[in-house]
């Protein structure tokens, strides 16, 4: 089945069997491996991508339903090599250990900050509850998300400059 996916602002044509999941198409057909397999049942958050700005489990979404929407993966969060304030905050807080679940967290947090630029602790916990982390960086990730929210609200200029490395 030939279809076109719009990923990170670019139209990409793929030819895959019917009912191929978006996760498989991203990883195996488009080489975008930052979106990761964790459970195949939308229970862990490792495969989250932004679909029209909302965090969605790509492991259950067939490509048939993914054409005609705007898909953003972690590879698309940085702009011209500048980390997003959220990516920068995760680095600064070292809010990761093995890093396997980090992509999914960044996606959920990006969607959250878009909908709620100054989230409370409780809102962060609720929004990221679907993102399981076994290494246990939850408290650091909460700190990183708040730091990113502050950077975006208070000094987006400084944040951008800081992230240029």
């Amino acid at each position, binding site marked *: 089945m030939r279809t076109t996916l719009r990923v990170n602002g670019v139209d990409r044509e793929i030819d895959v069997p019917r009912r191929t999941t978006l996760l498989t198409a991203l990883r195996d057909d488009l080489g975008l491996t930052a979106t*990761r397999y964790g459970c195949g049942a939308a229970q862990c958050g490792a495969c989250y991508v932004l679909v029209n700005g909302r965090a969605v489990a790509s492991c259950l979404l067939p490509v048939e339903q993914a054409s005609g929407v705007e898909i953003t993966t972690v590879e698309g969060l940085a702009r011209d090599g500048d980390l997003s304030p959220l990516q920068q905050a995760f680095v600064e807080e070292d809010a990761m250990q093995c890093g396997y679940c980090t992509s999914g967290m960044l996606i959920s947090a990006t969607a959250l900050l878009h909908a709620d630029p100054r989230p409370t602790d409780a809102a962060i916990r609720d929004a990221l509850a679907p993102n399981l982390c076994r290494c*246990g960086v939850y*408290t650091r990730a909460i700190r990183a998300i708040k730091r990113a929210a502050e950077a975006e609200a208070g000094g987006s200029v400084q944040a951008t400059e800081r992230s240029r490395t």
Partner: protein
Amino acid sequence: MTWGEREPERVEERIRIEPDGTVVALSGKIEFGQGIRTAFAQLVADELDVPIEKVRVVLGDTDHVPHDMGTFGSRSVAQEAPLLRRAAAYARELRARGKPIEGAIPTDVRLRPDAERRYVGKPMPRLEARDIVTGKARFVADVRVPGMAYGAIVRSPVRNAPVRRVDDTTARAMPGVVAIVREGGLVGVVAEREDQARAAADAVEVEWGEAPPPNEQRWDVPIRDDKGVDEAITAAPTRLEAEYILPPISNAPIGPSAAVADVRADGAMIYAGTQRPFGLREAIAEALGFDEERVRILPQMPSGTYGRNSSGDAPYEAAILSKHARRPVLLQWTRVEEFAFAPTRPAAYLKVAAGLDANGRISAWRYDEHTNVHTGGGFDPRWGAEASGRNAEPHYRLPKARVTLHVEPTPLRTASFRSLAAAENVFAIESFIDELAHAARQDPLAFRLAHVEDPRLRRVTEHVAKSAGWGRAPGERRGLGIAATIYHGTYIAEVAEMHVAQNGRARLVKVWAAVDPGATLNPDGVRNQTEGGIQQSASWTLFEEIHHRDGRIANSGWDTYPIATFRDAPESIEVDVIGDPTKPSTGVGEPGAVCISAAMGNGIFAATGVRVRQLPMTPERVRG
């Protein structure tokens, strides 16, 4: 070879300097999120006096790094840091003299004074951080090799069941199928796409035989055996006994096991998330009938697996599939496979009794640990007590004690899991110490300190008590619990503030920890590891249990094996790193995980008066 025994060290095995000045540091240790790549880079950059960006750390590539037993037991920094530092120091000397970087490292090589070091001892974000947040980081299952196909395994109902008959007529004709593989007890499919491999694997019909009976080994291992313990307990004015129970639990990595194998006629490349690259090389070479030199293991970033990667299931399976398909093969287990076919930490039953003298001091102690081996292989008497009986002996002054490890069969395959048996032993010991303190009508902190002889253990215990405001009343249905231990030379004490709802649901509200890992390379790395250990072990404590019947695991996903989520995370985990700079560096990957269960149980007791002696601490158990 025993732990710690090594050939004389040669500088070129550990440090190379490339023409452009890049320093390559080589180690057989593996990075899987514990931050050793960064710590090693800090150390080498300082010793050679180069910017850290000029250091490239190569870990575990069996064609390039020196032989290594494996990455476990929180020993990487303790074992490797001094070796790397000495190698880098000698390389600096050779570089200054314009000599090639080679030769045996002299015993009197001059190290740079600590005061001149720029990186060591300073907090440092992980070197991989930028690649992780931008998605550039490559995990095992992200490896893509030209011509690569995908594998899937046909699973037997119970592990190790022999294959009686295979009917692959339907599967063979399915789209994308490259090969149907059968070798020994392994039946699998290789196809052009992963979905095709899975669909065909489902269509292969296999008649399985009876699996061999589970491991029946039994060992009784005396760890300490003083005379007259039973008599002393019987004669004590106050006597106490308790039993603690822990269920089997799963390492439960977020990323299931994976490997890429490229097996050719004359050799093999294996991309794997292994903790033992040289052990894996030996096993793969044997399975493929190659000399070891023909097999190259290229360790990749795995999802954190906390010990489970000591066993090489996926690399072995991928290698056999690749051999028969004559293609490079990526195999990633499904979530269901990862729960049902991965090894587990065995259940444990801890029975403890003690006597208190008239002054409320422990006069005698008897401890029986019943569990299976805590490693992937069978029981090895050379280090079995160190592994499966780890931390069974308390670090308190005990005039008389008998401590015995009883290795007994359990129905499930076992694996190493963060801190091995230390987590269960310290849960039992530090809970029981709390019970003894209350029996003696003493404050649990004061009771501990009265039995501590080691000054570093005293220091972390007093420090954490002060940070947490020990002695305060934290509020309605809230309580503080304390626990401490020494793990492979690292001193750690933790206080948990617990809240217990009316329905019995226990919540970890705040945690304080004090850790002394000797001279500290990366303080923020130490904090991150300790926090993670606490968070993971709090999850074991409150939620986790493997359910099984007739050797088959019933948990199949995160719905049936829930772990802590963002909603369960404590409000804060405050880790004070108070490493004694005059003492050798020790590891921090595991210690954080060791004493939080007892601290939480003790906190629940302080909040409600209910003593929870069985994990997980479910609402039913916490209601009492």
